[in-house]
Structure formats: C-alpha cells, structure tokens
C-alpha cells in the first residue's frame, strides 16, 4: 500500500466517523425535542425570574400535581418552543418577555385546534405587567383599566363559605374591561375589580403572591376551574383529619383520648405514625400499637411517615430498607399502614420519586426535606406514577381546615395541641363544606422488600394473606427483659439526649457569660494597679 492510499483510507475513516457523530448529535437533538412531554399545562416564568418566582412556580406545580395534572414548566424562552403542544398555558408573573415571545403568544392565542393538541388554546396570565404589555402590543390597549395603586383589598368566597378577605400588593393593578367569567373581588382605590376574569381565550388573575395563603388557595381553585372542560365545577375531593407525626414514645393516653373523641363523633381520621426500626416488642411499643389497632377498628386508618432523611446524598435503597423494617415492626403488632407521608419536596427529586413509586397513596406534608438538593427539571415526573395524592390543606384561618375541594387535603392535628383545640378543629372540619372521608373507602397498596400489600373492597391482603382488622387487646408479660446495654440505651433516640444537651449548653453558656463579664469587670477595676 503506498502512502497516498493510506492517507485516503484515513480520510475515509475520519469522514465516516464525523458523519456518524453528526448524525447521532442530530438524532439526540431531535429526540430531546420530541421527548418534550405533551402535558396538561405549560407554566412559564420570566427568563430572569428570581428564586422567589421559581419557588412560587414549584409551589404551583406541586398543588396542581395533587390534582393529577401533568405539568411542564420553565423559562419563557424555553417554553415558547413547545406552546403548540399544550392547550393550557400559564404565564406566571412575567416582568419581561424574551424577544418574539409576545408575537408567538398572539399566534398561539389566535390559532385554531391543531394536530397534537386536544383543544383550543387557553391562556392564563398571572400578574399585571405582562397583561398590559401583551394587550398594548396586540393593539388592545382599550380592553383594560390600569389602577395606579400598590394595595388592594381582596374578597373571595370558596364554595359555600363566607367571604374571605385580605390585603394584596402589586406594583399596580390591571383589570380586563370585558369578561365572560368573573370571580372574586379586588377593591383598588374604591374601584371594584375581579380576582379572576376570562375574556375569550385569555384568563387573568392580577395577584401572584403565592406566599399569601388566601391568594394561593384562590389561584389553585381558579386554575382548577379554568382547566375544567365542562360546565359547572370540577369534581369535589374530600378532606382527611390527620393526626400527624405521632411518635411511639408519645403519651398513648392522649392518643386514645383523641381516638375516642373522633370515634364518638363518627368522624373518619388518619394517624400518621413515625417509623420504628428496632425494639418493636417493647411494652411501650406494644401499648402504642394497641391504641393504633383500636383506632384501626374504630374508623381510623394508619399511614406511615417517611424515615427522617439525614443523608447528604440520599440512598434510596437504605431508605427503602428502613421503610421495610418499620413496616415489619408495625405489621407484627397488627397495625397496617395504608399510605406513605412524605415531605413536600420529595416529588421533585428522582430518588425520592422512586421511593414513593412503591406506594399507591401518598400524603404530602408541609415539611421540607432539607437534605435534598433541588434538581433542575421541567416537568412533574412524579405524575407518571399515578399516585393518589393527599396534599396538606392551605391554612387560610387558624383552624387549618381546608377551603379547597379541588384535590384531597389533609388537615393536620398535632399531638402537642391542647385537647380543647383539637376538639375545635374537629368541629370545624365537620361543619366544613369540604366533605370528610375515610381513606378506608379507597384502594391502597405498596410493595417493599418482602412485603406486598393491597387494600381493596374492605380486604387488606398482605403477602397473599387476608389480615384481621378487628381489635384484639395486647397481652403484656409480667416482667419484660429489655436486653439493653449502655450503647443501646443512648442510641435509642438521641433526640431526648440532644434536648438535655441543649439545656446543659444553655445553662453553661449563661454561666460562662456571667463569669466572663465578672472577670472583665475585675480587670478594668484593677487595670491601673501595678506592682
């Protein structure tokens, strides 16, 4: 083979490789565009949105996930590419829009039903600045009123409830002049505007502050209505009374008192127990589980709280092992948790989504798992697992009772609250227009290492065996052998040790500060006295 032939051969191989490489890149790019899910709603925010805006959008996504909606979300310049794949688009509190976005939105607004989209376009604009810009840009400046005031008074009535009022703040307020639908009132400078209004394909909510619980609840209710394709209101979901985060070492007497109260009032309830991993046969645990069995047989149901995550990089296998251990301990005592309660940010992380996928029913608590690092994502991936969601209620007043029936909500009751306060909350829940329901009325299921549970039509099947849910009292040994050594005693739960330590540290700190001040005082006093 001569030299020129060799070079030619190398050139051919190189060209072939480059060709394959470019084809694979093109394919990858195309497939990523194709992979964009055709969800129910596309939510977009400004490209330069601050962390608060992103957090508000995350909150919105979370609350819409409870309604089993498939959401895609991201910045405006990212989302404008995918608009045509969605029939419902939310522009959340835009402060500015990328070049060409407004034209693109106008084009979307005026488009008819196209292939790949099931319905005509719906646009919801939350906030005022962008509505004004959009209408100005599309020659509809005469279709809105601008009120130059930063404060307004909001009045909103949830289904059948009294008007809830509160102050709202925006840079200024814009209201559509004409509307085919209107709900709620925002009074600005003695002029009456709406909380939500619809004109053609445009729907507008002037206030965007998701940290305000009244606005938060009202926005979710309006989005649910906006998304509802039929006349009338969307389905009504129930609320559940949830005795939250009950630890086995807490007073079983008080728990029994609460259970008896709910039993007497014929009110369904849920107890969320904290997981235990060892010493499941201790007398205190036996006693605790006896109360839980009584609750199970008296209209209450038990769910399990996820193990408290203390791993800087969460190991899902470890977490699942702990869950399996905890389930085994409770099951041995005749307690059958039906669902899993998790911190609210678990739905945004791949590993926690996988952990949750082991359970059919998920209760989301108001807590945040601080060890989880936020992942950049553009959709609520958890949607695909088809969970039955119970979100925490949005507390508009001090009772924490739910004013929303657009998704299932849990009204948390803490064991630390006074009994009178608990009684009051139960009463408010009973009187609420949102119906109370028992989670025994729905199907549940989970699978863990060696456990497969399904609950359907009143039968709880655990590992192919039907479980007895009637109450049987516990039998206690006369003298229980604790088998404790010193390390086990201390390791049982460092929480109580930590509390003692905090007290000791506090006391020592005060003493030290006193001693330091005294020494400084003495030093100053003797400063000029030398040998």
């Amino acid at each position, binding site marked *: 083979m001569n030299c020129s032939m060799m070079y030619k051969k190398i050139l051919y191989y190189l060209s072939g490789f480059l060709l394959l490489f470019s084809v694979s890149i093109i394919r990858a790019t195309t497939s990523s565009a194709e992979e964009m899910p055709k969800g129910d709603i596309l939510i977009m925010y400004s490209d330069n949105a601050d962390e608060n805006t992103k957090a508000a959008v995350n909150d919105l996504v979370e609350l819409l996930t409870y309604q089993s909606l498939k959401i895609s979300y991201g910045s405006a310049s990212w989302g404008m590419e995918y608009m045509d794949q969605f029939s419902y688009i939310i522009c959340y509190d835009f402060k500015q829009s990328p070049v060409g976005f407004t034209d693109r939105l106008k084009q979307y607004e005026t488009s008819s039903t196209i292939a790949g989209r099931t319905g005509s376009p719906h646009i919801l604009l939350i906030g005022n600045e962008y509505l004004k810009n959009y209408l100005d840009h599309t020659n509809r400046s005469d279709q809105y009123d601008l009120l130059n005031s930063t404060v307004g008074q909001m009045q909103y009535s949830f289904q059948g409830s009294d008007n809830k009022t509160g102050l709202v703040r925006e840079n200024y307020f814009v209201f559509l002049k004409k509307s085919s639908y209107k709900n709620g009132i925002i009074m600005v400078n003695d002029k009456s505007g709406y909380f939500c209004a619809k004109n053609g394909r445009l729907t507008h909510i002037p206030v965007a502050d998701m940290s305000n619980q009244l606005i938060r609840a009202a926005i979710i209710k309006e989005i649910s209505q906006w998304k509802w394709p039929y006349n009338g209101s969307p389905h009504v979901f129930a609320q559940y009374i949830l005795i939250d985060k009950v630890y086995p070492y807490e007073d079983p007497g008080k728990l029994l008192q609460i259970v008896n109260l709910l039993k007497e009032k014929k009110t369904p309830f849920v107890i969320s127990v904290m997981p235990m991993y060892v010493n499941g046969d201790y007398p205190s645990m036996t006693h605790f589980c006896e109360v839980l069995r009584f609750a199970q047989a008296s209209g209450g149901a038990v769910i399990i709280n996820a193990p*408290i995550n203390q791993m*800087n990089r969460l190991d899902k296998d470890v977490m699942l092992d702990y869950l399996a251990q905890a389930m085994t301990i409770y099951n041995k005592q005749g307690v059958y948790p039906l669902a899993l309660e998790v911190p609210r940010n678990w739905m945004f992380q791949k590993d926690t989504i996988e952990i949750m996928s082991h359970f059919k029913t998920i209760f989301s608590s108001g807590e945040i798992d601080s060890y989880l690092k936020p992942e950049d994502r553009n959709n609520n991936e958890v949607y695909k697992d088809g969970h039955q969601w119970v979100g925490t209620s949005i507390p508009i007043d001090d009772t924490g009772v739910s004013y929303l029936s657009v998704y299932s909500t849990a009204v948390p009751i803490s064991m630390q609250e006074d009994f009178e306060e608990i009684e009051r909350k139960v009463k408010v829940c009973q009187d609420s227009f949102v119906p109370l329901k028992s989670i025994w009325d729905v199907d549940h299921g989970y699978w863990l290492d060696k456990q497969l549970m399904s609950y359907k039509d009143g039968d709880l099947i655990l590992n192919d065996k039907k479980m007895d849910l009637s109450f049987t009292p516990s039998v206690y040994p006369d003298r229980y052998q604790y088998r404790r050594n010193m390390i086990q005693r201390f390791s*049982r*739960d460092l929480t109580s040790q930590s509390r003692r330590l905090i007290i000791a540290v506090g006391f*020592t*700190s005060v003493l030290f500060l006193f001693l330091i001040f*005294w020494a400084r005082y003495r030093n100053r006093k*003797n400063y000029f006295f030398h*040998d």
Partner: protein
Amino acid sequence: MSFIDVLAIYSIFAIWGLLFLNIVLSIGGYIYIMGMYRTDGHKPISEYPMVTVMVPAHNESIVLRKTMEALMKFDYPKDRYEIIVINDNSTDDSAQVLKTIQQKNPSAKIIIINTNRVVGGKGKSNALNIALSMASGSVIAIYDADNTPEKQALKILVENLMSDDKLGAVIGKFRTRNKYASLLTRFVNIETLAYQCMNQAGRYFFFKLCTIPGTNYVIRRELIDRMGGWDVNALAEDTEISFRLYRMGYYIKFIPQAVTWEQEPQKLKQWFKQRTRWVKGNLYVLKSNFKYAFDPAAGIMRLDVIYYALVYLMMFSSLIISDLIFIMGILGLGHVTLGGFSSLLWEMAIFLFVLNVAITLSVERNEFNFNNILLTFVMLFTYAKMWVLVVANGIIQGIRDALYQKEVVWDKTERFEEIPEKVTKNTKQVWK
C-alpha cells in the same frame, strides 16, 4: 444500628464528655485564678533557702543572653541563689556567649558546665542530672534557655514551696513571648492560656493536682535525690517527675503570679517536632504509669493518669472518628442513621469550645478581644486538626522506636532571633 452509628455514638459521647470535663476544669480554674489574683502571690518566709537555678541549653546562643539577663534580675536575695547553665554539647557559640555574660557579671553566681558529646547531648534529663551533681541549693529551680521570667517569679515560687512541707514542687505560669511572630504563635498563645494555665488551675482547685510544665518551677532537692534524679529515658521528664512526686505523697501547687515568658516555635516544622516530642514523652509516661490508674495506693495521682489517658486516647480517637464520619458523609460512603442525630450537636460543641476558651482569655489582661475569639474559632478547624496529626505521628514514632529499640533522642526545638515587638500601651501589664 450500623457500625458507623456505634462509632458516632462513641465520638459524640467522648467529645461531649471531654468538653464538659474541660468546662468543669475551666470553672474551677477561673475560681482559683480569680481568688489568687486578689493576692500578690507572695508568702513571706523568715529565711530564704539556697536555690540553684538550672538552665539546660543546647545550641541556644540566640536566646541565652536575654534569659540570663532575666535570671540575674530576680528579686530573690542575691546571695541565696546560683545559676547553673549546662551548655550541653552545643555546636554554636553558646560557650562564648555564656563566658562573656559570666565575665560581665562577676557579682552573680553563675556556673557554666560545658559538656561534650561523650557525657552530654543526651537530652534534657541527662543535662539536668549533670547540673544536679554540682548544685548547692536545697531548692532546685528549672528554666528553659528561651525563658525570660519576671523578676518576682522565683521568690513567689520558693516562698510558696517553703510554706507547706507536703508541697514537693511549685509551678508558675508561662506565657508566649513571641505571640505576634506568626499565626502559629498566636494559636500557641491561646492554647497555652486555655489548656495549660486554666487546666492546671482547675485540676489544682478540685484535686490539688498539677503537672510540672518543664520550666518555671521549683522542687525540693532532697526529693530529686530520693528519686535518683531525672529519668533519662523520658522525653517528658516534667510529667514523669510529677507522677513520681505524687506517688511519694507530695503535691504540686500552681501559682499564676509567677510568670515566665517563653519563646514558642514560629514555624510549623519546629512546632510539629516539638509537639511530637511532647506526645511521645507523655505516651511513654502514660505507658509506664498506667498500672497506677487501678492502684489505690497511688492516691490522687491516679486521676492524672486517667486524665492523660482520656486526652491522648479518647480525644484523639474520637476526633479522628468524627472527621472520618464527616468525610464519609461528604463522599456518600456512609451515613449516621441515629434518630435525633443532627449537626446541631457539632455546632453546640464548637460554640462551647469557643466559650470555654473565651473564659480563659477573660481572666488575662489584653487577651480577651475579638481577634483572639476569632482565632479560637479558626483554631478548631486548623490547630486542633494539626494536634490530631501530631498525636498520630507521636504514636507511630513511639511504636517504631519500641519495635526497633531506638535510643531516645531529644529533638531540640530550633530558636529564632526575635524582632522587638510592637509596643502597645496595653502589653505586658503585670498583675498586682
């Protein structure tokens, strides 16, 4: 409960246990020192005994002049003390420097012993034993060659020693002369105040227990004679002699008014060598005295043995374990899964550590300031970690020496020429 949980429990309890032990000692030390500062430290006696001030020196010409000047300025009766300098196999011009000092001060009783490598160069204990053979005092005072004691120091120490027959030795306080020289010497300054002065004071307050610090102390001559001199195998001859004194039924007293200013290592390499020598020495003493921890006849000294064991074994291991757990957590190799375990435990420990040092600084003039508090915080993540390395190195070297039966060598700390410090109006005040 996983293995990592057991380790976490051990380190939590070890660190918190030792932290609270130190807090208790600091409170005792605070009460003792504040009480002592109400007096001037003197206990006048009718007759001052003859004192031999012994200064072991090996290649110390840089610092000797300053030291000798300070020793000759003692307000102790001039005819009642002598200074013996053991110029121990020096290769620098120490002999010449000492000769000049001797010639310029004919009124002072200065004895210079120049040893060669046949009899000398075998460490501090050997040098002290040589000096002892020529000492005429009934009380022996020891000063390192880099010390500048304050003029009243010797008198205070001797007066206190003679005031109680059961006192075998009296020790003073040492301060850092070159604390502004480098960041390292600033750390050493804080360490000296917190973990040597305050700790000594606390142990003395509660148990009448002290450890001789190697310099700025006086001891009865007859006790040294009865012991057969200093143990030449001990690198920490001071700790060794303290244990022996307690076993003989005597005790040691700490007097904070007797102050000496000492030059501390300015560079990391010298500091590391010096501290490794201390660790090796203390571990040798611990090894040879550990049997007394369980011997009731050993008396109160048992507590000191246990204290050393706690510091060197428990603290060292718990710090290493806690660091390992931290690193494993970061790398995702293992996690503590104990209920209630949180970073608050470490944060509170750090807070208490800083507060504990702050209380020590507060009793000293010109030491309680923002810089030192900040340095204390920084110390925890730098100096304390270096201490772990020093102990690890000391243990490894100790094991290696034992395996290869290496002769104990006194690795002398290198001295530095000192640049005169910035004189601020607050520096070097003397306690009343």
